[in-house]
């Protein structure tokens, strides 16, 4: 197996995207971003709405945080501040996006409603920004990593939403209804995703 450094940039971007989305799924393999997933995955369309917003924010903030880390934190030897810096950058970025969406697409703004501010505290996004530091990636590879991670989360929450829609009318034991059955579903799905692991090593 070729190491990521030896691939051409284009190949590495594709490989990183696929591995971040499938073999290393942030929701199902790393169990990050669980709170908003449990809260919002009742219906497919709201799941997809939040998922799409997460894709956009993870990709952009991973790239942004890469730049902040490389060109501000490392030169000033402030690597130990990465956690809090990333949080601030993500929060500010989400605020900005919220404003832009509100201005230019009130319909989307209405549809996303509370999800947008929720993204600020979605740990999957901070997770992706932190994981990228452990990898020997350049700017575009980081961007692909963020995009793939977000896409993986989108895929997972949409699938979970679909399953929850199907089982809504089922007679579940009282104690399992709601989050209980959802966690079991996520567990089974993550078994399936574990099957991908090891296919690509990045």
């Amino acid at each position, binding site marked *: 197996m070729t190491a990521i450094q030896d691939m051409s940039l284009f190949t590495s971007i594709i490989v990183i995207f696929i591995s971040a989305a499938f073999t290393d799924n942030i929701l199902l393999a790393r169990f990050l971003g669980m709170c908003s997933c449990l809260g919002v995955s009742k219906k497919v369309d709201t799941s997809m709405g939040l998922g799409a917003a997460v894709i956009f924010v993870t990709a952009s903030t991973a790239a942004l945080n890469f730049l902040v880390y490389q060109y501000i934190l490392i030169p*000033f030897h*402030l690597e*130990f*501040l990465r956690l*809090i*810096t990333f949080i*601030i*950058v993500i929060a*500010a970025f989400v*605020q*900005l996006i919220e*404003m*832009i969406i*509100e*201005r230019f697409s*009130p*319909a989307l703004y*209405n549809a996303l*409603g*509370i999800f947008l501010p929720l993204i600020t505290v979605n740990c999957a996004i901070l997770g992706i920004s932190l994981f990228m530091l452990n990898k020997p990636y350049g700017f575009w590879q980081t961007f692909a990593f963020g995009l793939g991670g977000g896409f993986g989360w989108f895929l997972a929450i949409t699938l979970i939403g679909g399953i929850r829609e199907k089982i809504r009318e089922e007679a579940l034991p009282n104690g399992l209804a709601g989050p209980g059955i959802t966690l079991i579903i996520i567990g089974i799905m993550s078994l399936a995703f574990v099957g991908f692991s090891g296919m690509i090593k990045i």
Partner: protein
Amino acid sequence: MISSVIIATGFLTITGLVLALLLVLAEKRILNYGECKISINNGEKELNVAGGSSLLASLAENDIFIPSACGGRGSCAYCKLKVLEGGGAIGPVEEPYLSDEERKTNVRLSCQVKVRNDLKIEIPKELFSVKRFTGIVEHKKPLTYDITELRIKLTDPATIDFTAGQYIQLESKEYKGRESVMRAYSVASIPSDNQAIELNIRLVPDGICTTWVFDHLKEGQPVNFSGPYGEFRLSGTEAPIIFIAGGSGMAPIWSIIRDMKEKNINRKASYFFGAHSQKDLFYFDELKALEKELPWLTYIPALSGEPENSDWKGERGRITEIVPKLFPDCSQHEAYLCGSPGMIDASIEILTKAGMPKEKIYFDKFA
């Protein structure tokens, strides 16, 4: 060690400041909708406001006060009005408060509609002259065991302009987990006494606002209300008047009668006040004195539950029995009713039976 602490603190402060500044600038630039025109009631009034804030706030800036108790959080649903054009889609906060009927007629919560473009809206005309007042409780004195008189001295604005018979909306403050609400109370004081208002408030068991007034509101405490509202007032005709009131329905009639005295309106008037027993009567001596002083006024309190052997010399029985007994023919009269819906409905029935046309009956239902 120390230097790294300083660097870290400095770095975070600067980063935070820079990002906050960027956001503020972005908000100015991005969320700038320019000037928007709000056209009210088919162009009757047009406002030019800076876009970006809620419709409720934009109207309040232009001195049009839509009733609102929750302060724009979208939880009281008092601020409903019709947005005919430019309101956009119904937001998730509004959803639960709008009925199908209201959706069809474009009713929205004005605190949730953002002014992003030109709007066409419809609001009741009387709201144009409504203001929001702040005052201080000057006194709170019990009139009967369950009715209290509240006098609120105005602080901002310092005077109120209203017609006898109108009502205001009192804002209760939050207490013991009960939310702030707005409740309507008729003004009992007279228009010339324009630096204060008086209200007659009857304790409703477990009522949010009345419990607040009775148990939590103290003399000297600031209160807010908006007003004046309502079309209940004396007509300009010369027809003899029949007033009928019960309980705190006294308030608007008490105001109208004293206003008539002040303005030398000498229309013949008979005031029927229905109560259960003597302990429910209030302003009794004052009204008896007025009756003596004013040749045109007759005050007829009627008690329905007074014990047989008491010292009560006035009328006994329900108001709906007393009125037809004294006025078998009401075809030339006008009637002004104020009280509970049950009392009003029963009174309208007996008055129309006695020949009074429906359009001559004015009433204010306290629900």
